[in-house]
């Protein structure tokens, strides 16, 4: 019984970080219509930033997380400005550009940190919290969970309560109609890309002490993010969050009982089934055309 509770606690932490990466992917796709294949690498850069700022340079942990947010958001803005904007009418071109960025960021990470050496990021908050008898949660995980929940709440408030958030959602719904209402598509695209990338960076920064920091860590992240966004419905934020929680529980339980590879295989098959039966996903409204 304790194993079940422990797995639930782990799944809860995982769902926070799945949701953060998926929300970024959904924001970028919603506004620009481009699937960002480099999203996992933005996550990786976030983790590397924390490794460099916190473990090497000795910044306080939260300052390092903010640093990661800024670094990755700037990379996102540069990508939007230089690579995605000229490709606005060519979604396949945008996707291919993001694959190019993926390669470049991996090489930069290898050059900055070296290959093969494991980057150890010591936990900023050592110790554990005992929830019930036999079920523990490390403080680092608790912090990661709280920060991701707060961040998701802020994004939600921003999108539903502010004028800029309304503009962003309007652009995602209908770009031309939004432009006719005087919304600057360029500014909204930069906002979506900066926000989406920054959130991925924060996710990487929070996970850095909990996982192995290495140049190719983005691969498993992008697979999970794809599964979550497709199951939730491409272009639906609430769907992405719901799917993130569901998939995190599914993935954590299958990993605990059957192993990581089988969990990913099953996740991919579920995604295929969703694509066949209900391509709009759990909460999606966009058609497949």
């Amino acid at each position, binding site marked *: 019984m304790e194993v079940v509770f422990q797995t639930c606690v782990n799944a809860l932490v995982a769902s926070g970080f799945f949701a953060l990466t998926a929300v970024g992917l959904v924001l970028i796709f919603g506004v620009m219509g481009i699937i960002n294949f480099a999203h996992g690498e933005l996550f990786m850069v976030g983790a590397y930033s924390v490794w460099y700022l916190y473990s090497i340079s000795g910044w306080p942990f939260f300052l390092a997380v903010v640093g990661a947010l800024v670094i990755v958001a700037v990379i996102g803005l540069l990508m939007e400005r230089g690579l995605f904007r000229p490709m606005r009418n060519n979604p396949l071109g945008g996707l291919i*550009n993001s694959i190019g*960025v993926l*390669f470049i960021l991996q090489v930069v990470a290898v050059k900055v940190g070296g290959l093969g050496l494991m980057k150890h990021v010591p936990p900023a908050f050592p110790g554990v919290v005992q929830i019930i008898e036999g079920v523990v949660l490390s403080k680092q995980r608790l912090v990661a969970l709280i920060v991701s929940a707060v961040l998701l709440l802020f994004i939600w408030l921003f999108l539903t309560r502010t004028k800029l958030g309304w503009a962003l959602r309007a652009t995602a719904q209908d770009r031309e109609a939004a432009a006719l209402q005087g919304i600057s598509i360029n500014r909204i695209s930069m906002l979506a890309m900066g926000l989406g990338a920054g959130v991925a960076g924060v996710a990487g920064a929070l996970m850095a002490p909990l996982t192995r920091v290495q140049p190719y860590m983005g691969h498993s992240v992008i697979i999970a993010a794809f599964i979550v966004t497709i199951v939730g419905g491409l272009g639906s934020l609430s769907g992405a969050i719901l799917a993130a929680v569901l998939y995190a529980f599914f993935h954590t339980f299958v990993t605990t009982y059957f192993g990581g590879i089988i969990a990913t295989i099953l996740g991919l098959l579920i995604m295929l089934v969703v694509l066949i039966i209900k391509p709009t996903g759990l909460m999606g409204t966009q058609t497949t055309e």
Partner: protein
Amino acid sequence: MINKRTSKALGLIALFAFLIVLPFTLKFHQQDFLIFLIINILVVVSYRLMTLTGEWSLIHVVLMGVGAYSSALLAKKLGLSFWLTMPLSGIICTLVAFLFSFPLFRMKQFYFLIGSFAAGEAIRLSWVYFKVPFGGPKGLRYIPSPKFTFPGLKEAIEIWEPIPYYFLTLTVVTLCLWILYRLENSRIGLTLHSIHWRDVLAESVGINIWRYKTLAFGVASFFVGIAGALLAHYLGTINPNQFAVGIMVYVLIWVIVGGTATFAGPIIGVTVLSIVNEWFRAFEIWRPLIYGCILIISIMFLPEGLESLPSKLRGVINRLLGKEEIEVNVPERMEKEEEVF
């Protein structure tokens, strides 16, 4: 005056003479490189057949792996000869593709791309997961080399040295390319083009889009399966990492940088980029970065690929000389226009 047809034939003869002499002038590792290049040419050309319908898949390299694994397993477990396992692996690939075509062709564009990625990754991870018979992460080893016999010969000749294997690969790939070329210029190929240009119009004149897409997918898979078998029996060892999505991305880069409008485009792309890759052998770590930059630059500034370079250069030179541009460059594959109803 030599007409276009004879000059084309002469060019082909010259090319083949060059390809026959070439391996004898090269060092050992360069011969190796040449074999991989020829196998990759088959991979990109078969991939192009798939893209003719307008769908870009990410499962192609995994299907190459299906070919490699099935040929290796048939040769190892059942002791079948290479001459049998190679076509069989192509057929198995077609069957796998046919099976996956049911879910995949319910999707279009992005959904197809991601769906094919998911299907491919699921297949690939199952090779990692099932140690029997796929050998797990370490893959399969000791895959037998092809043996060649004919009446009157006492002992079978084993083809494993680069030069004999080069000629084996060259023969098989040339045959495959010829079939693919004929296919594209047949009625079927024209129908595939029409689906890419105007799928709704094609459907309205009675073309069964689903059937033709499946056909293109199946044929492309057959030939990439053959390429996989050729790779497996040359290397003698295969593992799941050789067919990862990262390798698929390289195939995409070759095809895009070369251009998909003509048959020769992807061949030019893979040849040029592989040679560039050889130059950068000393900078192993930088290689993905160089590839990434080439990819971005080509999609931004040369979206029709290297094959469009000569006509573009001609345009620039004409402009510099102050000539009026008379020749209007019409791409063979028109851009798909927005459907207005």
